[in-house]
């Protein structure tokens, strides 16, 4: 061992992070990267199988993680998530809200039921409110904390998914408001707005949905052949692209950044390349 150059401490070394929706896709990538950078990670999601799988992946890589089954739309479960995190690791330094329901609404607003609207708002917007509500007192007592909420490009563009877009716009506004409130006790809050990221869920929607929106409905091959609304950079983003941005914002490297909406979208929000 003495011949090896000592590795530098991780960028989140000694911190405890909660990542919601961490059983799959972007959330799993964030949880794994946070753990690689030295954080203790609490994997929060509804499905035990996928959540435990993320924990196992982190463990196999030498990291420390804990699964807490959580429905973020239920306050009693969110309270328990925070309590179990504090019990296991002594605090909450980082909260990353990545959970969302996505692609559950019909292509036309006049077909959108109240139930689907409520479900979208409950999970995507209220879920972010609840986790922040219960994590903030712990962060305030510690005098420090970093919240990174994963929103969506849908909040910024003319989205094909009005309920989803509205829920994500709520996340942006909520985060900015909290950034102003929470700064006095040392807590920062920022938003990442990803565009199309290559995940299993996106891939599934690409083959089954009827949305009038190339971000979702087209396969990569279709987009390459006929870009309708394209992005500046070629190709789709990957979960790690979001994880890198989340790691930066979560870390002390971003100590002077709060209330910011950071697109990680290959330039999508700004232009139509055709």
């Amino acid at each position: 061992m003495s011949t090896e150059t000592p590795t530098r401490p991780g960028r989140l070394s000694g911190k405890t992070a909660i990542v919601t929706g961490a059983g799959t896709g972007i959330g799993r990538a964030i949880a794994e990267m946070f753990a690689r950078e030295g954080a203790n990670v609490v994997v929060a999601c509804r499905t035990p199988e996928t959540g435990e799988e993320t924990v196992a992946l982190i463990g196999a890589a030498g990291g420390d993680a804990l699964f807490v089954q959580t429905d973020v739309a239920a306050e009693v479960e969110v309270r328990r998530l925070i309590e179990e995190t504090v019990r296991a690791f002594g605090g909450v330094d980082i909260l990353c809200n990545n959970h969302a329901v996505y692609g559950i609404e019909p292509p036309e607003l006049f077909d959108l039921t109240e139930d689907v609207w409520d479900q979208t708002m409950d999970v995507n917007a209220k879920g972010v409110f609840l986790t922040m509500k219960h994590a903030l007192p712990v962060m305030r007592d510690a005098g420090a904390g970093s919240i990174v909420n994963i929103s969506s490009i849908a909040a910024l563009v003319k989205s094909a998914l009005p309920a989803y877009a509205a829920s994500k716009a709520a996340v942006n506004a909520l985060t900015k408001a909290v950034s102003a409130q929470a700064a006095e006790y040392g807590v920062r809050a920022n938003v990442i707005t990803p565009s199309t990221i290559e995940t299993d869920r996106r891939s599934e929607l690409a083959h089954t949905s009827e949305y009038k929106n190339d971000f979702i409905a087209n396969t990569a091959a279709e987009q390459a052949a006929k870009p309708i609304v394209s992005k500046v950079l070629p190709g789709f983003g990957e979960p790690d692209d979001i994880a890198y941005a989340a790691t930066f914002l979560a870390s002390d490297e971003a100590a002077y950044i709060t209330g910011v909406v950071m697109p990680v979208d290959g330039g999508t929000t700004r232009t139509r390349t055709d």
Partner: protein
Amino acid sequence: MTKGRVAGKTAIVTGAGSGIGRGIAKRFAEEGATVVVADMAQDAADETVDLISQGGGQALAVRADVTQADDVAALVATATDAFGGVDILVNNAGISFGDTLKLHELEQYAWQKIMDVNLTGVFLCCKHVLPSLMERGGGAIVNIASAAAIGMAPRAAYAASKGGVVALTRSLAFQYGEQGIRVNAICPGPVETPMSNAVRASGMYDDDGIVDLSIKRRGTPEDIANAVLFLASDEARYVTSDVIPVDGGALRLRAERFRNR
């Protein structure tokens, strides 16, 4: 061994003889980049290179006035000759000297000088570095704009020049995305630097300007450098055309502090 986050890359940083630019140059070197330290003042550039060398990093000082096409062409040629190419350009050189809180009191030469350095300088550096980046098959440009470009803007000429930098950033991201070149901007708020200290010392503002921030302190060059490092590195390979404030969570500017002079 943990590799640096920009290991093996060559970066040109303009205005790197002091303040934010020096912070960026040092941070890049810590993370494994070879840094071309460009500044109007040779001795200031030399000093930054000395600091980097003491930390075990690799850097080269080049005297360059970014408003002079010949200087910029020579800067890029020097970097290419020494290190075989350029991967990263950070347009950090900027001035605010001569700007006023009342536009009708602004001298045209001051307006012109601010535009020349802050906007034309960015154009010239991009123009001369882009061919190198294309030759490499990609690269990253990070422009240091300002919070003044997005609302916190008591001084009009400075704000206009930095607004131009934001627009230029987005246009270049569009033009060169296909070639794998990413272009982003950082908008620093109040940062502790020789330039901003001089403005405060001049008595232009009534107070220290941090009351309008969520985070009640001025930023440091390291705060800006960390954000630049992220955007310049491959970690941000899917980030382009972003304009990211690093401004302590600026709230709405309280105009009364700026009105009476």
